[in-house]
């Protein structure tokens, strides 16, 4: 049986529903050392800002139960260096290149969208509306008004498909997803990390220098599943699932709950070839369940009578 892995995210067509999550795969070159990246429909790069960002002090990561906390602080080389040095390589690995952009204010997001619009070979822009590790990062993801206004301004600034990446650290993620849709986003991705904390009581110190950080990994999967399901029920645009996805069953659970594609994050820190393993697992599961087109299972969660 020939299997069809292709999925559509509005105007963005992917050869498989697997993507990498921003901040978890660099810009592709490290993963490419492990295997051919054809299992991925797209690679999503680490957030790029207008100017280089130094990042947070060390230590930046701490392991927690079935997960980890990170507070990297958006360290990146900035737009100019990225476009000159990194983007050309990122386009060359096979999967489509999605650029994740982050601004410290409204104007920086718009500036980045305008500039990236002029670059070749970018499949979509993902707006990081929700980094929990910088002081100014949360406003666009926590209130529908600012979220819609920002997405609308970015929409005007670029022809590229826009994915709005949502935060779980909100009272009502459905309302934020709707605001992103109303602003003109082509898709939403959910979730970014949950704000968390880890402490060493003997040393009386936080385990990351930033005190708090973003919790990720299998520990957050149930929260992500709930958020994806709520967002998918609230909007007509596609939803991309992120949050603790570690195997083929996780992928299919999210797709049944309404995700059109998924991003792999923390699992890549543990298993650099997770994309290949999961792709192989999806093939087996689809053959086993008689699913020819993976897109057919999107949003098939049964309504309870």
């Amino acid at each position, binding site marked *: 049986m020939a299997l069809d892995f292709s999925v559509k995210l509005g105007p963005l067509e992917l050869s498989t529903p697997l993507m990498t999550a921003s901040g978890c795969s660099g810009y592709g070159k490290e993963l490419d050392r492990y295997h051919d990246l054809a299992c991925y429909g797209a690679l999503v790069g680490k957030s790029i800002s207008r100017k280089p960002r130094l990042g947070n002090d060390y230590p*930046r990561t701490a392991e927690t139960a079935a997960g980890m906390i990170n507070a990297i602080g958006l360290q990146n080389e900035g737009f100019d260096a990225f476009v000159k040095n990194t983007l050309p390589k990122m386009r060359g690995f096979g999967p489509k290149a999605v650029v994740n952009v982050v601004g410290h204010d409204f104007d920086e997001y718009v500036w980045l969208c305008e500039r990236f619009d002029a670059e070749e070979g970018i499949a979509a822009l993902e707006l990081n509306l929700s980094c929990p590790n910088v002081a100014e990062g949360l406003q666009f993801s926590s209130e529908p008004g600012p979220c819609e206004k920002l997405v609308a301004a970015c929409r005007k600034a670029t022809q590229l498909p826009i994915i709005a990446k949502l935060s779980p650290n909100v009272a009502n993620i459905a309302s934020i997803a709707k605001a992103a849709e109303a602003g003109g986003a082509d898709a939403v991705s959910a979730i970014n990390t949950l704000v968390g904390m880890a402490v060493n009581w003997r040393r009386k110190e936080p385990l990351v220098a930033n005190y708090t950080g973003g919790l990720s990994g299998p520990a957050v999967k149930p929260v992500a599943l709930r958020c994806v399901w709520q967002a998918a029920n609230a909007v007509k645009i596609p939803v991309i699932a992120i949050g603790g996805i570690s195997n083929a069953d996780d992928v299919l659970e999210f797709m049944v709950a309404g995700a059109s594609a998924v991003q792999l994050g923390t699992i890549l820190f543990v298993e650099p070839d997770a994309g290949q393993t999961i792709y192989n697992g999806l093939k087996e599961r689809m053959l086993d369940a008689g699913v020819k087109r993976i897109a057919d299972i999107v949003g098939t969660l049964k309504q309870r009578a």
Partner: protein
Amino acid sequence: MPTTERIKLLHDVAVTRRTDFGHGYFELYLDAPELAREMSAGQFFNIRVRSELFPLLRRPFSSFDLLKDARGKPVGVSILGHTVGQGTRMLAGMGEGDRIHLNGPLGHPFELPENPDTRILMVGGGIGLAPFLHSIRQWAPEKRDLMLLAGGRSQRDLGFMKRFANSGANILIASEDGSVGVKGRVTVLLEAELKALKGKPAMVFTCGPWAMMDAVAQICLQAGVPSYASLESIMACGYGVCNGCVAKVKEDNEHGFRYAKTCVEGTVMDCSRLIW
């Protein structure tokens, strides 16, 4: 569309033996010929202790010994462990037949200077001595002038030093409580050895607690001897994607430094570039 030359980096390997040195220190011997062939002293690999969700992240280890068969063919590596948390506790309970999963070799190794007369001073503290056995195994056949300065809190923390016997380096030991070797810190040994050089070219490699490596770097800077540190740091991925395991490296920018990933720019870094 491969753009990088790929070598095998993921290895499912068997433990062949465990040796205990007491006080939580242990050595695991691993049947890993492919890894042993590729690995250079100072590189590391990242161990997934088990395939469950906790502990989730891998644990970085240096290769301790490079294991060879009777004909000198590399057949595996060993790791030196100290039980400090859940991951190392699980490793300390392993023995023949248990399997672990490795990602490596990773990072940049120690690089010897071209001049074969250069004295190589290896300065290690506690568990940070681990990469130097592999170093000596690798460099002794080249007839290099090797000296190991080993420091630890007490004899209890240096039980594994017997594995360095007859390895091909001169060895001096210092312990803070004086229970083995000279009483004091390893930096006392280093200062004496640098004075004794009397113009002989030297290079220092160090691995251990950051405070010790910082002190070693300062002493070497004053003595005008180049020094390189293998940085131990908290890593999530170990192969360059998470940006977690950073150290401050001098840089001509508004901050005077940048954060460099120790897993890919290191772990061995030029001390003169580091801000401790």
